[in-house]
């Protein structure tokens, strides 16, 4: 059974077809890219997979479970975590608290446990805190634990956002343009970080990315979309030589 299976995924916004008959199957521990020009529908695909949008047509299953009637937090608890194209950290909460709140689904104690500080509560909170510190340590963020994200550099915020997603212990990690807005040193750091995550955790990584350097050095498979439709699917070398891709990116007359 594939980890993620999307079949005939279509999403319309009024008259606009943002995603048109999109299909994908992802297995365990893959590293796959989704590329395409701006407005091609890439982020919409992620929004559909993470349960933020409902598909107009088609179905998504995660580990065989149909996610169509689920709310986003339920999809997340199936093991799907993501970052956002524009950083969406909780800016008024410390980095540490950002990585605690994201483990909400793991809290699993009742309000009464919380008021009475029961054994269950203490245990779960300790576990949440431990996971948070471990991740901060492993991702070189420990020294910023008590900072507010809005006071950090853009590159660090990206890193915190990835750490926050990883705190969910996902089996599928969606990265929406992780290298956007990073300087070249930060891009190198990002490539290293993503590779380290992929080697260390049992996670499939699916990323939207414009910087070919990132895609080529990390992904084994690339899917290309344009105007909501898939125009190519293959290994990095196949994609680089694909005329449809070159046309989509560069326009008709340039070649």
């Amino acid at each position, binding site marked *: 059974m594939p980890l993620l299976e999307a079949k005939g995924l279509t999403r319309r916004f009024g008259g606009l077809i943002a995603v048109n008959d999109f299909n994908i199957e992802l297995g365990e521990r893959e590293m796959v890219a989704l590329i395409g020009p701006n407005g091609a529908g890439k982020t919409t695909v992620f929004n559909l997979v993470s349960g933020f949008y409902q598909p107009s047509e088609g179905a998504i299953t995660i580990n065989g479970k149909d996610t169509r009637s689920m709310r986003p*937090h339920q999809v997340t608890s199936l093991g799907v975590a993501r970052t956002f194209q524009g950083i969406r950290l*909780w800016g008024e909460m410390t980095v540490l608290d950002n990585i605690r709140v994201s483990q909400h689904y793991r809290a699993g104690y009742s309000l009464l446990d919380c*008021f009475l500080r029961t054994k269950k509560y203490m245990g779960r909170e300790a576990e949440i805190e431990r996971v948070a510190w471990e991740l901060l340590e492993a991702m070189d963020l420990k020294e910023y634990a008590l900072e507010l994200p809005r006071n950090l550099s853009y590159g660090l915020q990206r890193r915190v956002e990835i750490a926050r997603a990883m705190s969910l212990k996902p089996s599928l990690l969606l990265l929406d343009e992780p290298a956007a807005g990073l300087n070249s040193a930060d891009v190198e750091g990002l490539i290293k970080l993503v590779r380290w995550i992929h080697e260390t955790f049992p996670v499939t990584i699916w990323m939207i990315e414009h910087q070919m350097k990132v895609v080529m050095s990390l992904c084994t498979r690339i899917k290309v979309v344009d105007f909501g439709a898939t125009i190519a699917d293959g290994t990095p070398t196949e994609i680089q030589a694909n005329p449809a891709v070159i046309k989509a990116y560069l326009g008709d007359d340039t070649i």
Partner: protein
Amino acid sequence: MQKHTFTISLFAGIFVLTAMAQFGVINQYLVSVIMLMGVNIMLSTSLNLVNGYMGEFSCGHGGFMCVGAYVSSIVTVLLFSKNHILGAPLLPPSLALFAFPLALFAGAAVAAVAGLVVAIPSFKTRGDYLAIITLAANYIVISAIDNMEIIGGPRGFMGMNATVNGMEGLLDIPWMLLWVLFGTVFTVWLLRRFVSSTLGKGVPAIAQDEIAAEIMSVDTNRMKLIAFMLSSGLAGLAGGLFAHILGYVNPHSFDIMKSTEVMVMVYLGGMGSLSGATLSAILFTVLLEVLRPLEIWKWVVIPLLLILLMQFRPEGIMGNKELSDLFPKLKKYYSFK
């Protein structure tokens, strides 16, 4: 040991205050100001959960206070006083001491359920629209009671003194002061435990980025339900105490004017700060008393002060900081969890 210093001094404080009231060291007027302060602290900290921590704009807190006031009053009147409609007392006055907290709890519970009127729309609605719903909720409560002749309608409801007298008959100490002090400590303690837990931090996550919260596994509907119901339930508790301090309630003591007062306290103290809300409730109560000679003119002066505050310190006295953030040394003594 040091960690408990705060708790110990808190209870010592309660004891000393009650003893001082008992032996006439502080007069009845001062006692009633202190009780009003306690009620105001309960109201402003509980509203702060919604307006500060969750970033919504609830302007109907008075309505939930009203529900708590009436429900607990009806229970105690039913049990301990003779009422021309509700009949003779059901229990002997000696049981008042034990029944009173249960009556308060009943008021808080019904007020929490009334909070659903706002909580459920909040799943889909935010900001201005939700503010209007909270306003409507306040009106619904007041108008409903206005139309209930059986509990006095617009003339109000009384008979709660019998319960207070019953408690004093058992042991002659200033019971209401004691209950208010306990209620205040309980409220702040409960809220403090909630907002410092991972569960509770889901509330400010909703304020700061609701979409990110939902995607990061926070069940935002559940959090809204908890926040609104906890907030309205504690307002109901404050209402129950308020009703038994006065011995008489009138639906119009809980109208938009009351809700506005509570909002002023929240914004004065700083959104998302429990110590701020506590300080501002104390300050506000004192201010109202100091300005009492101005009579109705104080309602020109106080809003004016609010406008000035918003001009020069829009984040309120404390911003979203707690006392222990500003004075880290306090942390040694101050672990109110």
